[in-house]
């Protein structure tokens, strides 16, 4: 079955600390993975996608096929990073399957 798992509902860190939001997936083919972010009172928006191999707002995510993971990382968290983060997998019908989300809280 195709599935995305985000094991942490809430992740709380202090400003300047490293951040890693976990995402594991279950997919039989070659996965297409995304991270979406929703800041308070704003719409859900794309943060990054693995095919672009890009760094957005200091965040990176590496696809690890062996561990079926796509964890989101940032070396030094900022208060403005506080938001809800969703990992998503594009399925074989080109629909997105979302994880349950992780709320990141960056404390001053």
């Amino acid at each position, binding site marked *: 079955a195709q599935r995305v798992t*985000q094991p942490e*509902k809430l992740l709380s860190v202090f400003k300047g600390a490293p951040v890693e939001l976990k995402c594991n997936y279950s997919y039989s083919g070659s996965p*297409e993975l995304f991270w979406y972010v929703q800041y308070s009172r704003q719409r859900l928006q794309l943060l990054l*996608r693995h095919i672009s191999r890009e760094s957005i707002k200091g965040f990176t995510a590496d696809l690890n096929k062996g561990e079926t993971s796509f964890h989101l990382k940032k070396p030094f968290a900022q208060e403005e990073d506080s938001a809800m983060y*969703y990992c998503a997998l*594009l399925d074989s*019908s*080109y629909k997105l399957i*979302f994880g*349950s989300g992780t709320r990141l809280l960056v404390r001053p």
Partner: protein
Amino acid sequence: DVKVTQSSRYLVKRTGEKVFLECVQDMDHENMFWYRQDPGLGLRLIYFSYDVKMKEKGDIPEGYSVSREKKERFSLILESASTNQTSMYLCASSFPGVGQPQHFGDGTRLSIL
């Protein structure tokens, strides 16, 4: 910049009412989607459409229907609203193809009393 507009930010309706949620996008996207967003469950796909007059069921279509008469507009219909349909509803659109990101509206927070 892509604009996906949902007609209402907040909506309160009564059990048994027929409810219409409207979504319009201005980027000529072929694909349009309706999700509901619930705490601890993430986003779940209700229905989607790859083209005008086409619709496909998502993961939780029961109690919902959709209409896509024009490319830019995708309507979600609750035939007879129930309290368990109280939720945040998100509309999204995208171009077809691998790697194309979905662009989301602001959402409609629907309360069924």
